[in-house]
Structures are given as structure tokens and as C-alpha cells.
């Protein structure tokens, strides 16, 4: 590791590369600048969510499932309610809209996760009750005194086991334990050219299997929020979230409050790395403040942060390359499995993002990918640095080394050979521009003392691309594998002008009857501002997870204008 003390800062500016494309007369880049927030950090004054003092602060702690998968037969909070310092014990019945999925904010997916589970838990640590008490110790003791009658169910903890026909079903709305994409397929497809034909023509076929375990972000600050009644009939919420608008929108939806009644303060995050986007704490903290009239803090302790807090999900990738003897990769086929854990959260979108990335920064004329968002009884997954990309990039680059070994080529030269160049068509049908992989590879070779051939040293991202390489293949093989019935398309990537009809949001899982809407929200919640449409029923026991036929597409959540970079053209 380069020693900063003796060798100076670890940044080297290569002014020789792309020199005529930019102005090097820069005011900020390359000049040391103090971070605008660092004075607060070194004086201990940066206002993390917990750095606010409230008189009469109450503490919330949850009762959690000890099982990977279990039905909840009965929850008895009576003893907990009588314990010293306890002000209130919440269960799912107290949550105004006890079913959500984070990406409903982007109109993507189905509501699948209750903030407080009522009939079933699908991962170890899933909360079923929230105790609010005068001190954290009292809340902790009372949470342990909530009595739950569990009926353990068979569980599955591996992605390929979970998609077998006889696997335990994690989410009733997805009977095969797979997220349904676009209402049509049980996986996300990428098709470009004809992979099977090209594999038949290749000199070598190189196969690889790669996987990554879940990775815990482990920030030093655990996730949490403090909510308190504020004047003007609002609630203030200090939160550790990385995604203030996600959290605001989620809280508004789950609590059936217009967002104008919420005052969110955040942006000072004690490490997030993607793990503070799920917006778990704000809704319950605010609900606690609503029901007690006092400030309520809900934060994970370290054990919860590590096990209950969502990690980067596990991934497994199978890659098959068709390679010519001279090292040109003419086909690349992916089968990928993302372990979403027990609920969807962001995994469905991670795959959209990841598939847009394939086959990596290389121009390969035939590419196909089948990528599955799989449900298991593991802790639900969420984002972490390089979200959706990191696992597949590890797999791709390891595979490139394997290909280099197969054809007897220097792995850096293999990459330069196959690298995309400006003007090339990428597998998701956009033209590559501002490519720089070749130059990066050349600098790496120089730093590592690897000698490249003159041809490789002369290669450039600016030359050799486009032309025939810039054209979409005349023929792309498509298929209907993984086609499912009974799911309607969501509004994802719908063309501009089409309205989201209620019908489009009501997938009925095949083979399940729809039930009449059950009686609506609990008595004790303050009424939200007049709703435009009747709210959906809070989950009733054994009702299929989905919505009543008159459920509107919009339900109090904030909306965003685009998903994953798709722009209305």
C-alpha cells in the first residue's frame, strides 16, 4: 500500500490522455479542497440523526422472528404492555397501510412487505411488534416479553434451491419465488444477436460459475430515526437515511399522511454505502410519535444492523463465452441469480441496472442474459456500492482471465482487443461514447510492468469503433422461455401519455381467488387529509398479497419521473 506520508497523495493526473478533449486549466479538480462538512466532523458537531436532544424521548424496540420462515398464530402483547416504562406496544394492526414495496415510489413492482408482520414472517429477525418505552432498556425487556405463537415453516436459503418446483414458497404473490418482469417473464432478458449460433461457430467455449455471498455494509452509525410531533400539525423526523425523499414518500404512504404533514431532516449519514435506503425506521418512529404524542427514537443496535439490516444480496452467475483462436469474444451468455431475500425492496431494479451493464465494457456481437430476482428466506437485500453491478463485474473480469488463459493470451491484451470503442453498438442498443477502457488497460500495464505488443500499445478508444460494429445486428434470436401468465404489466417504461389504470396494477397470482376487501384502517390513527380514493385494506390473515380491485395506482407516495435512466423520447 502506497504510504501517503512519504510519497504524497495517491492521485496522479494523466494529462497525456484525451488531452485535446478538455481544458486543463481547472479551478477545483486537482487542487486540495477541504470538504464542506469536515469542520463539523472534526469538532463533533455534524448533526447525525441521534445528535438531537428531546425532552421526554421514548425508545422503540421490536420483537423479531427467531425463525427463517414461520406463520404467526398469535401475538400476545399483554404482559409487555404491563412492564415498567412501557407506553405502547404496536402491531401490524396499528400501521395504516401495512404493506409496501420501496419501489412503489417508482411505480415498479408489487407491495409485498409489511412494516410489522401480522400473519407470517419470511426471514429471521423480521419484526412483528414494536414496543415503545421510557428507556431503551425497558423497551428491550418488554420486546422480549411479547409472546408470539410461531408455526415454523420449511425454509429455503439458496437461490437455485428456491426456484426448484418443490421449494418452499417465500412470497405468495410470486409462486415460483421469482419476480415477474414486465408482466411477462420470470426473469429479465437481454437478447442481442444469436448467441447459440455464435457459440457453435466459436473455436473455444469457455464456461464459468461465479458467486458472491451477501455483504453487510456495516456503517459505524446504525440505521435509525427520531420522530416528534411538531407544530402546524406536522411530524418532524430526523433520520440516518441516504434517501431522504424515498423515506419521506414511504412514510407518507405507509402512514397515509400527505407528505405536507411530514418534515424530514437528514443528509448527515454516518456511513451508508447503500444500506440506509430502505426507509424502515421512519414510518414506525413517526407512527410512535403519532400514537404517543411524544418524541420516539427507533434505531437498530449493532446486532440488528448486522443481521436484520439489509446487506448487498448474494449473487450467482454462470457465464459462457464463445471465443475465436485470436482472442475475439464473439458470444457471451449470462444466467444470473440475485438473492433478493424475503422481500423485493431494490433487487428487482438492481437487475434492470445490472442487465443494462452487460456484457461489460466489451464489444461482443452476440449477447444474451437471463437474470432472475429470486426470493429466499434470507434477510432482504438492498443496495451497496456498485449496486447491481459489482457481483457481475467480478464475474465478468474473472471470466476474462479464464478466457485469456484458454487462448493463451495476455489478459490485458485480451481486454484491449475486445474493449468497446467510441461508436460501437452496445448490447442494450445504445452507441458507446467516451470509452476509455483501452487507455486504462494501457496505463495498468505500464504500472504493473507488463509489456504490451506495439499493436496493443497503439490501440485507442477513439479509433477502430463504429462502422459495422456500430450497427444493431440484423437478426436477434428471441424466445418465450420463462413466460408466465396472470400478471399484467406495470407502468414501468410505458410510453408517455398512457395513464396508469387501476387494472394494470392488479396482478392476481395465477390460481388464487381474489377476496373481498376487508374492513379498513385501525381506529386510533389520526385521519389523514382527505384521500382521493378509499385506502386498501390492511393485510387480513391469509388474504393473497395484492390489492383490492379498486385500489388506485397512486396512494399518497411521491412520484419520480423516470426509472433506471429510461427517458421518454
Amino acid at each position, binding site marked *: 500500500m502506497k504510504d501517503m506520508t512519504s510519497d504524497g497523495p495517491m492521485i496522479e493526473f494523466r494529462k497525456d490522455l484525451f488531452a485535446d478533449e478538455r481544458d486543463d486549466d481547472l479551478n477545483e479538480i486537482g487542487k486540495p479542497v477541504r470538504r464542506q462538512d469536515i469542520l463539523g466532523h*472534526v469538532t*463533533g458537531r455534524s448533526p447525525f440523526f441521534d445528535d438531537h436532544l428531546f425532552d421526554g424521548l421514548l425508545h422503540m424496540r421490536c420483537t423479531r422472528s427467531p425463525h427463517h420462515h414461520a406463520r404467526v398464530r398469535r401475538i400476545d402483547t399483554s404482559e409487555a404492555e404491563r412492564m415498567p416504562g412501557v407506553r405502547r406496544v404496536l402491531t401490524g394492526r396499528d400501521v395504516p397501510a401495512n404493506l409496501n414495496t420501496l419501489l412503489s415510489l417508482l411505480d415498479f413492482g408489487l407491495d409485498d412487505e409489511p412494516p410489522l408482520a401480522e400473519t407470517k414472517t419470511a426471514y429471521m429477525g423480521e419484526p412483528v411488534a414494536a414496543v415503545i418505552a421510557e428507556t431503551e432498556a425497558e423497551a428491550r425487556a418488554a420486546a422480549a416479553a411479547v409472546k408470539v405463537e410461531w408455526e415454523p415453516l420449511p425454509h429455503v436459503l439458496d437461490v437455485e434451491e428456491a426456484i426448484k418446483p418443490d421449494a418452499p414458497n417465500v412470497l405468495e404473490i410470486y409462486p415460483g419465488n421469482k419476480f415477474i418482469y414486465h408482466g411477462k417473464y420470470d426473469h429479465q432478458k437481454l437478447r442481442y444477436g444469436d448467441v447459440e449460433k455464435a457459440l457453435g461457430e466459436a473455436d473455444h467455449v469457455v464456461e464459468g460459475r461465479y458467486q458472491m455471498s451477501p455483504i453487510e455494509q456495516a*456503517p*459505524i452509525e446504525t440505521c435509525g430515526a427520531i420522530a416528534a410531533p411538531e407544530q402546524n400539525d406536522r411530524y418532524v423526523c430526523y433520520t440516518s437515511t441516504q434517501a431522504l425523499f424515498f423515506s419521506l414518500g414511504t412514510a407518507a404512504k405507509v402512514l397515509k399522511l400527505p407528505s405536507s404533514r411530514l418534515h424530514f431532516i437528514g443528509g448527515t*449519514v*454516518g*456511513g451508508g454505502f447503500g444500506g440506509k435506503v430502505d426507509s424502515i425506521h421512519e414510518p414506525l418512529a413517526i407512527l410512535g410519535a403519532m400514537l404517543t404524542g411524544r418524541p420516539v427514537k427507533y434505531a437498530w443496535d449493532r446486532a440488528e444492523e448486522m443481521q436484520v439490516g439489509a446487506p448487498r444480496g448474494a449473487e450467482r452467475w454462470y457465464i459462457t463465452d464463445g471465443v475465436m483462436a485470436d482472442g475475439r469474444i464473439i458470444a457471451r451468455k449470462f444466467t444470473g441469480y440475485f438473492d433478493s431475500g424475503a422481500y423485493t425492496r431494490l433487487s428487482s431494479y438492481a437487475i434492470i441496472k445490472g442487465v443494462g451493464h452487460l456484457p461489460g465494457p466489451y464489444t461482443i456481437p452476440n449477447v444474451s442474459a437471463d437474470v432472475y430476482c429470486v426470493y429466499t428466506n434470507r434477510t432482504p437485500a438492498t443496495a451497496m456500492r456498485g449496486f447491481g453491478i459489482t457481483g457481475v463485474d467480478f464475474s465478468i473480469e474473472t471470466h476474462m482471465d479464464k478466457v485469456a488463459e484458454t487462448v493463451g493470451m495476455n489478459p490485458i491484451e485480451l481486454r484491449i482487443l475486445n474493449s468497446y470503442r467510441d461508436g460501437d453498438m452496445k448490447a442494450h442498443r445504445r452507441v458507446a461514447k467516451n470509452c476509455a477502457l483501452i487507455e486504462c488497460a494501457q496505463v495498468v500495464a505500464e504500472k504493473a510492468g507488463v509489456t504490451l505488443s506495439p499493436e496493443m500499445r497503439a490501440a485507442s478508444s477513439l479509433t477502430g469503433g463504429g462502422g459495422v460494429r456500430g450497427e444493431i445486428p440484423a437478426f436477434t434470436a428471441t424466445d418465450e422461455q420463462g413466460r408466465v401468465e396472470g400478471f399484467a404489466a406495470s407502468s414501468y417504461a410505458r410510453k408517455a401519455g398512457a395513464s396508469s389504470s387501476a387494472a394494470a396494477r392488479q396482478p392476481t397470482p395465477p390460481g388464487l381467488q381474489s377476496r373481498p376487501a376487508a374492513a379498513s384502517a385501525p381506529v386510533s390513527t389520526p385521519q389523514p387529509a382527505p384521500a382521493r380514493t378509499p385506502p386498501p385494506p390492511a393485510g387480513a390473515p391469509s388474504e393473497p398479497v395484492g390489492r383490492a380491485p379498486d385500489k388506485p395506482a397512486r396512494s399518497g407516495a411521491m412520484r419520480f419521473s423516470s426509472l433506471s435512466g429510461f427517458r421518454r423520447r
Partner: protein
Amino acid sequence: MTKSPVGFTLNGSQRAAFADPGQSLLDFLRRGVGDLSPKFGCGQGACGACTVTIDGATHLSCLVLAESVAGREVRTAAGLADGASLDPLQEAFMDHFAAQCGYCTPGMLVSARALLDRNPRPDRAEVIEAISGNLCRCTGYEPIIAAILAVAEGRARA
């Protein structure tokens, strides 16, 4: 619950507040006294975000009983600056990008200050040992080590 009065010195000033039985010094400092600079990271003694000094020696305040500091001298990160005049370590951390999210920084600074107070010219290995009880998830430690050595070698701003 019988609270006990705890009179002690915090960053050079006489303070007093009531501690709950079994309350940690960390919680007592933050909520009882109002010094929010030491942070909660684990409650297990693993991360060091709660580091303070008691009579000059670093301690993990999440593992100290609040009432045990009665009559003793506690120092936290909030006591490093003298009004607007910062400790050289604070200046060096800012110059060397030794903080990103800033959550480990108060504990890290207390450990660094305790090192330089007892050993003004540590070598790299001694700096590493001195901060080995403070976890950082953001910087990779090198900027922090560089900042501490810069002060030790007299290269930091005064």
C-alpha cells in the same frame, strides 16, 4: 429507579447530572449532560466511536458505568477545540481528508490526541497501534495515519 448524582469534570469544566443505575457513560454524556460528540456504534467495545479519556487514559464510554466517573476528569472530542481555535490534529484531519462520513472522527481524534500527549513523535507503527481500537468504514485509515504523522512531524498547520 433511583438516580445517582454524578459530579465530575468534563473538558475542564465542573459538571453534574443524574445517572440511571446501569447507565453507560456514553448515554450519560450524550443525554444526561448534552455532550453529543462521542458516538454510539456498537455498545460492545468493538468500534471505538465512543472513545473518551478518563483521567488521561482512553476508555470506551459505552462500557463504562456513568457513576464510576464521579470526581474524575473526562475529556471528549468536544474539548479538543478552544472556541474557534482548533487542535492541530483537527486541522490536519481536514487537510488530509481524514474524515468522510465523520462518525468515527470524534473517537479517532481522542485516541490520536491521547497518543501525541504521551508520545509526541510516534512512528507509523505506533500510530497504527494507537488507533487500532477505532474502526473507520470510509477512509481506509491511510489519510488518518497521514494526518496524525503530519502533526507528529510538525508538518501540520499550527
